[in-house]
Each structure stands twice: as C-alpha cells, then as structure tokens.
C-alpha cells in the first residue's frame, strides 16, 4: 500500500487540505476581526466590513470549493489514483 507514489499523492492531498483550511479560516474569522476598520471603506454604498460578512466571504467559499474539486481531481489523476 505505502508505495512512494501513494506517499507523494497523500502529501499533496494533505497540502491542499491545509491550504483550503487556511483560506477558510481567513475568510471565516480573520478578516472579520477588522470589521470596524473595513467599514471605513465604502463600496457601492456597502461598508466593506459589512459587505465581507454578508457577501464577500460567501463568494470566496463558493469559488474555493469549485477550485478545490478541480485541483484535487488533478492531483488524483497525476498520481493515478483517480476513479476511471
């Protein structure tokens, strides 16, 4: 089971997982710590801090999930562990 290819593949999978969780943590929590400063900036009538919680972070979540599905599939194919 533990061939070199499998180890490399799982390493990349885990790397992608960590990347995803870091982005997730940034847009779930980190940027909202600065809501008051962001609210000073107004775009289209939206205070930016409010906008990020109401739409910005959500858009990031959606986009990152489509990106993740493609990226993980590429990793799987590259190492020959994808479904046929």
């Amino acid at each position, binding site marked *: *089971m*533990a061939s070199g290819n*499998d180890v490399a593949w*799982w390493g990349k*999978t*885990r790397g*992608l*997982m960590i990347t*995803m*969780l870091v982005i*997730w943590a940034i*847009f*779930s*929590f980190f940027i*909202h*710590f600065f*809501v*008051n400063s962001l*609210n000073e900036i*107004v*775009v*289209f*009538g*939206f*205070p930016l*801090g*409010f*906008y990020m*919680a*109401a*739409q910005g*972070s*959500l*858009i990031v*979540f*959606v986009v*990152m*999930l*489509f990106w*993740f*599905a493609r990226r*993980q*599939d590429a990793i*799987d194919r590259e190492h*020959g*562990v*994808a*479904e*046929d």
Partner: protein
Amino acid sequence: MASRHDGSDFTSNLGKVYGLYTGGFAAFVILLAILEQLGLPNRIIGYLFVFFTIAVYAGIGILSRTMQVSEYYVAGRRVPAFYNGMATGADWMSGASFVGMAGTLYALGYDGLAFVLGWTGGYVLVAVLVAPYLRKFGAYTVPDFLAARYGGNFARLLGIIVLFCCSFTYVVAQIYATGIIASRFIGISFEVAVFVGLLGILLCSMLGGMRAVTWTQVAQYIVLIVAYLIPVIWLSAQKYGVPVPQLMYGHALQDIASLEQQMLQNGLATGEKLKSHITPFTTYNPLNFFGLILCLMIGTASLPHILMRYFTTPSVREARKSVAWSLLFIFLLYFTAPAYAAFAKLEVYQNVIGASLDALPQWIYTYGQLGLVKVCGVNAEAVEAIKTACAGVEGNTGLLRFPDLSINNDVIVISTPEIAGLPYVIAGLVAAGGLAASLSTADGLLLAIANALSHDIYYKMVDPNAPTGRRLLIARVLLIIVAVFAAWVASTRPADILSMVAWAFSLAAAGNFPALVLGVWWKRTTTAGAVAGIIAGFAVTAYYLVATRYYAPGFVEMWGLATDKFETLKAAVAAAGDETARAAASAAFDKYAQSIAKWGGVNNISAALFGLPVGFIVMVLVSLVTPAPSKEMQDFIDEIRRPAGGVVMKEKAA
C-alpha cells in the same frame, strides 16, 4: 416522468424533466395570476398553491418508489453532482431559514451575519475533510462509518444517539413550520395543517426512500429559490430601477444609517434601544460572534442528514463537485437574505416610525391581525385599538416611535410582496416556497432518523440476516412511526423543543466531528480513543446546554459564578409569602441566573466551543495510550482515502 422507473434513462433526461417542471410551475403561477385578475378570491389561490405543490411532490415520490436496498438508502448512487447540489440546498435550507433568516438579520443587523457565515462556510469543511471519504467508504448512514472505523456496534450506537439528539428536535421544528405556514395561508387549523404537512412528507419519502427524497428535493429547491428571489428582485427594480437586490441594498444601508441618526435626533428612538444596522457586536460580543460562527460551521459539517446526501453521487469526484454546487445553491438564498432585511428596515424607518398612528401603512394591520406585529404592546389589529394602547404609553404623542413597534421575524419575508404592491399570487408563491423549504428539510431529517433505526439498529444489530423485502418493510414502518410521533409532538406546540433546535449544531459538532475527521486524517486514532472522545465531547456539550438553560441557578452555584444580585434574588424567592409571589420571584431568579450561567461568557448556543476541544483532546490522548490500530485497519483507511477502486462497504444482496 414515466421514465422514472428506469433509472439510467431518467438520469440522462434530467435536464429535460426539470426544465419542463420549471416551465410548468411558471405556467401555473401565471395562470393563477390571470385568475386573480378575473376575481378568484385570495383564499382559493392559497389553497391551490398548497395543494398543487404538495400533489406534485407526492407524485414524484410515488413515481420514485423502489424495492432495491441501495436505491432506498443512497438513491442507487446515481445522482449527478449538480442535482445533488440542489437537493442538498433544499435539504439544508429549512422553513426557518426561508421565513425567519431575513427577520433575524433585520433584528440583529451585522451580528445576524454570524448565521449567514456559519451556515455557508461549513461546506468548506464538508468538502475538504469529510464528504469524499464517507462517499468512498460507501456508507448508508453516518453511524455505518463510525462502526466500520471504530470496531463495531458500540461506536455505531454512539453515532445513533448523536444522530437522534440532533435530528429529532430539528424535524419537529420543520413539521411545526409546515403547520404554521399552511394554517396562515389557507386558514385551516394548525393541528390539521400539521397532519396535512405530515401526509406530504410521508408521500414523498416512504415509498422511495432516498431516491424519492432526492428527486422531490430538487423540485422543492426550484420552487423555494424562485419564491425567495422574485419578490425582492421586484422590489429592487421598483425602488432603484435595477433588479439586482444583492447589489442595490448598499444604497438602502446608507439611507438606513442616516435615518437612524434622524430618529435619534427627533427623539423617536433612544441610543440604548436602537441598534445601528451595520455596527458590529451590538448583540453578541466578539467572543460569542466568532464562537457562534465556528459552532454553526462545524455543526454543518457534522449533521448526518447533510452528510448522507453525498453518499448518493456516482463517484468521489462527483461528491466533491457536488459540495461546491450545494454551496452555490445555498449561497443564492443566503446572500439575498440581507437584502430583504435592509429593504424591510428602510420601509419601516421611512414609512412607519415617526408616522402618525392614523397613517400607518396597511401591511402593519394585515400582519397585526395575525398577531405578528405589535404596536404599543397590543396586536396591530385596528387603528382605534393601537391609539388606545399608545395613549397609555408614557411619552407617546400620537406618533409611532421606535420602541412602540415590535415585528415578528417571519414578517420580513412574507410581507415583502405586499410592501412592493405585488398581486396576491406572489404572496401565495412565497407560502409555497416556505412550505417547500420546510417539507424538504423534514424529509431529509426523517430519512436520516428512520434509516439509522432500520439500517443501523435493525439490520446491523438485531437481524443481520434479514432478507431485502423485510428490511425495506421495516424501514418504511419505522419511517411512518417516527414521522407520526414527530408530528404529534409538533402539534402540541412544544416551546421547549422549538428553542432546542439551535442546539443541534453544537451537539452534532461535538459528537461527530472529531471522530469523523480524525478517523480519516489520523490513522493512529483508536477505537478506545474515539469512543472516549465522542462520549466526553458530547457529554460536555449536552451538560452545558441543559444545565445553563434548565438548571441555571444550580450551575451558577456549582461553578461559583454567583453575584450579589443573584443572592438578593435567591433570598427573595425564599422570603416570598404565597404561591403567586413565589412563582414570580422564582421566574425572575431563574431568568437572571440564566443570564450569568456561563463559562467565560460563552452563550448556551455555542456550547460546542467547550465540547469540541474536549472531544479532540480526549480522542488524541486516549488514542496515544492505547495500542495503534491493526494493519488491516490502516489498510482500510488507505482504501478510504484513495478515490480509485469502488466503494469499500459492499452490499451483499442489493
């Protein structure tokens, strides 16, 4: 639709089938709109909406009937990512999301966005950490996976207990919501409406299990999203000339901010009562705001009725894509809800607050008569009634001030068609949307509970040799029993149970998340570690939830949180003379005790903030001191991780 019996033919024609369905639904709405112009009474329109949509869902449910185990439990694993995304959207968005979410945002402003963030971001965790691996394993239920990974039926039993605790209160709330919506719109009594809803739910799920629920949920998603978007798009076009409410409410936010200032200057509102819409942390402090987001997200990634939707995709790859589609479909509703809240707030601040009591808009009375809008403490049923009530309120000069008005959360969405001056048919559409949202969530939850009983308890624990026919019969009987019991509980209007719905997220998070995530991502997790971690995390969360809500005074004393006021109120209870005085004093004492019964100021709803770390730490520590899992188990985990090679758990008699 006749092709439903032949799965492969049906799945290749999905686009056509649902395209026709959507067209048919649009034609139905237009037909009703024409009939309304011709003088069809509102009540009949309401009836037609409710009965027609329920009949369509039931029809899909009956056409999707099946006698195959894998069709019943996982829809034959043939649901394409896109459609499974829609079904998950409907499964996820409850009646409360549809009807109440915008109202929460109206009431809480920025702080309400914790729910918007928490109920979307969790899907990142679902996609990255959990769903593809459960799909690869090929489980029928979440406890199935726990049993396979953690050495059998004890872990399975714990999984069932967690599942039951977080799903049952939730399903009661959904059936309650169908009753409320149906009774409000078609005027039948609430108790009858609950059982009408029950019938709709059973017809959708009983004959075809997961397969039927999947295809009705797709149909329900289409109804609910159309119903949610149309009124607010219309309102945005009317007010700002651009039919994109999600962009145009920026202007509304600006107007709200300046109206808030004016109200403060005119003395219509006071600084302590009026919460600025965009200012953060007016209701929750940062700890509770972010704690709530975390609990809701991790809860999302742990709720069995959501995870089991990803068991139905044709491949692991499709499961990942499907999570992305799910979130897109959910996002469509959740990024619109703040627009509803802003438009409604603007309407209230512009046309209601500061208006003379004689000149309030008509919608105030429409919903006042339903008991959803109160002015000066009485239901806004008629002009005279509220004038009399307001005359008795100190400082009222015949103008409606901010503190005089109280609006039920549900009004925000259901009153929008009327505020925008839309025909009644749109109000009926909104009712159909709310009904679709609560029916679809109820279907998913009921199936999760009944499947745990029939597959995990009956088939895996009681009679592993049961023939297919008997397994499916038992599954259906249990589904009916659970559904009838839930409907009966809902018909008693159980306030306690309804307030416990929010607990589901913390309970699921603490009970399932560490075991699921470590089970896949950390091979060293042992059976003993997992069992200890589940019990510890779940117990801490449940203790915190129950003790701070129902045994607050005891909790305060046990953890040394008592304040002077606590002691004073406690003494008042002891000193109370007669029964009535004692009851009043006890109520005040308990209410205050609940407000201080907190560890480190963490709200009851975020209880998993304690349960999660406890669960993780116990699971890791106990795993480290027990012998590592066997070689077979390590290989099993490798197998679950690799997408290639088909499902791990094989059904012997499919």
